């Protein structure tokens, strides 16, 4: 029994936690530094133009992951559920927009006229709405009835919905990679010897615009404020007369809009998709959300950028077979050692 007292005293004096924490911080910094140095030598060896090229990919990639991560983080923030199906909503966006393009007269190899731009905008809008509708239906049918059930129940349901959606995409397009029409002009301009294409600009531009719009919405609009209030304390929000059901539905709606845009851009950028795209991309985006502190919108945007960049740089400079292993190791390490996120933003104590 004396040992308990001792352990308690030690913990209280902050000695153990302090030293362990410092060692951990040191180890983390050492690992990151080692990685950066290694990366630096490779960058120098490979030359500047390659670096700029990779950096461009990295930012575009980061933008897409950030859009997905936002959906995870918003839903987690408001109902504390890992919406496993979110990644698959994103994949659905990629599949759907790929099928819509030809219908709107956007074909591979065709000239990209102002009319095409309007058509593309329509495809974006339709896909985003369809994803939003899908996500709201998921919430309504699969999650809402279980809101007061033991936590395990909605979690299993979320896994089920994710698998169901993957199964649906599998049924639709089969097991192999699906080609996505390459409709954007291949034009671009030179920067430090690297080619920056229309695609890169489009993806980076749209993701920044959407994130900015989301920030504005959450800060300024009534619904955005209701969302933040509900995330902080659901009971209090209820007392303040906030319609909880509507607020939660709105969260799913907005998350899916971003995922739909992300899916469309993924297709336009990579010209390929596959039925379990949502699983892998979803897990990476979830890593990003955790990285930025789950529940934290700005954290998710920054985390998505960072994780997307780490991925792309690793792919570019190291053995890409290990990329996912590395990302998921980051996921586990962050969850274990920095559960509130690496960016150090505070998450409300529950």
């Amino acid at each position, binding site marked *: 029994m004396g040992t308990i*007292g001792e352990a308690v005293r030690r913990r209280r004096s902050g000695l153990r936690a302090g030293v362990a924490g410092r060692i951990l911080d040191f180890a983390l910094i050492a690992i990151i530094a080692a990685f950066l140095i290694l990366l630096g030598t490779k960058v120098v060896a490979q030359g500047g133009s390659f670096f700029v090229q990779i950096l461009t990919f990295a930012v575009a990639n980061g933008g897409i992951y950030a859009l997905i991560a936002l959906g995870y983080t918003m839903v987690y923030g408001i109902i504390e559920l890992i919406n496993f199906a979110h990644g698959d909503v994103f994949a659905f966006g990629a599949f759907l927009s790929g099928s819509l393009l030809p219908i709107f007269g956007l074909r591979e190899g065709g000239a990209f006229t102002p009319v095409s731009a309007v058509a593309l905008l329509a495809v974006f809008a339709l896909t985003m709405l369809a994803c939003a509708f899908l996500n709201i239906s998921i919430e309504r049918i699969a999650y809402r009835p279980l809101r007061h059930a033991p936590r395990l129940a909605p979690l299993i349901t979320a896994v089920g919905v994710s698998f169901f959606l993957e199964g649906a995409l599998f049924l639709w397009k089969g097991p192999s990679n699906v080609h996505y029409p390459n409709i954007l002009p291949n034009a671009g301009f030179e920067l430090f010897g690297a080619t920056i294409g229309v695609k890169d600009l489009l993806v980076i531009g749209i993701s920044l615009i959407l994130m900015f719009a989301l920030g504005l919405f959450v800060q300024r609009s009534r619904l955005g404020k209701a969302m933040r209030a509900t995330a902080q304390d659901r009971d209090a929000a209820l007392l303040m007369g906030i319609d909880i059901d509507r607020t939660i539905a709105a969260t799913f709606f907005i998350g899916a809009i971003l995922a739909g845009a992300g899916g469309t851009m993924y297709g336009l950028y990579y010209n390929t998709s596959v039925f379990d795209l949502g699983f892998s991309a979803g897990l990476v985006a979830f890593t990003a959300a955790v990285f930025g502190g789950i529940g934290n919108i700005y954290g998710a945007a920054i985390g998505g950028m960072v994780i997307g960049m780490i991925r792309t740089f690793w792919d570019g400079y190291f053995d890409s077979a290990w990329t996912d292993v590395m990302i998921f190791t980051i996921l586990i390490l962050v969850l274990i050692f920095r559960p509130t996120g690496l960016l150090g933003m505070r998450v409300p104590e529950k």
Partner: protein
Amino acid sequence: MTVEAAAPILRVDHVTKRFGGLVAVDDVTFDVKKGEIFALIGPNGAGKTTLFNGITGIFPPTTGRVIFQDREITGAKPHQVATLGIARTFQNIRLFEYMSALDNVRLGQHCRMSAKLWDSLFKTPLERREERRVTDRAIELLKFVGIERYTHTYARNLPYGSQRRLEIARALATNPALLLLDEPAAGFTPQEKVELMGLVHKIVDNGVTVFLIEHDMKVVMGVSRRIVVLDHGEKIAEGTPEQVRNDQRVIEAYLGKQH
């Protein structure tokens, strides 16, 4: 003042608990003496439950110390606190609803059992003997609090009053030296309150110190020789029922509102 001479079993030493900007418990100090019935009273939101949570390690205090039997337990985990000998009940009954009353009380003995994984896997004689002992003790405790007829009933199906009693039995099963009761008589009829106070006396007669929170000052005056009054997180009075009843701040903060 014979009580003053007795050794303290629990010392709450300048304990403060903050939730963000809210100071729920503000620099509170007092002693609970061995073998007494000590009471904590105060209006709604005074910080009484928060103080219990601080003592039992559920929400460790922001600053200050908790000392139990001359050992500092500030910041200890709830299960460590329970193992050291502090048991508690909850204001909003927290039974294991889908376990039988018997299993609830058997679970209470968890930290006093010695069967290891090995014993459980192979049902060794040690484990069988222990299970038998634990079951006998559980039935004894159910009888002690007077709800033995519900032995095999799911805890959630017990009548309200019996649920409160079951929580006490479960807490006693951990074999505590100090028992914390958070509003044990809440929602009781006057008759039930009298019965409960009888039970509390029986518990103290068995050598367990009782520290209880009670909303209803009249009830407290009947059982307790020493009372601490909390208001807005601050200790505003301490003393015998007579002293507390005549305290100006108590009358203002507490009785004033009711009259």
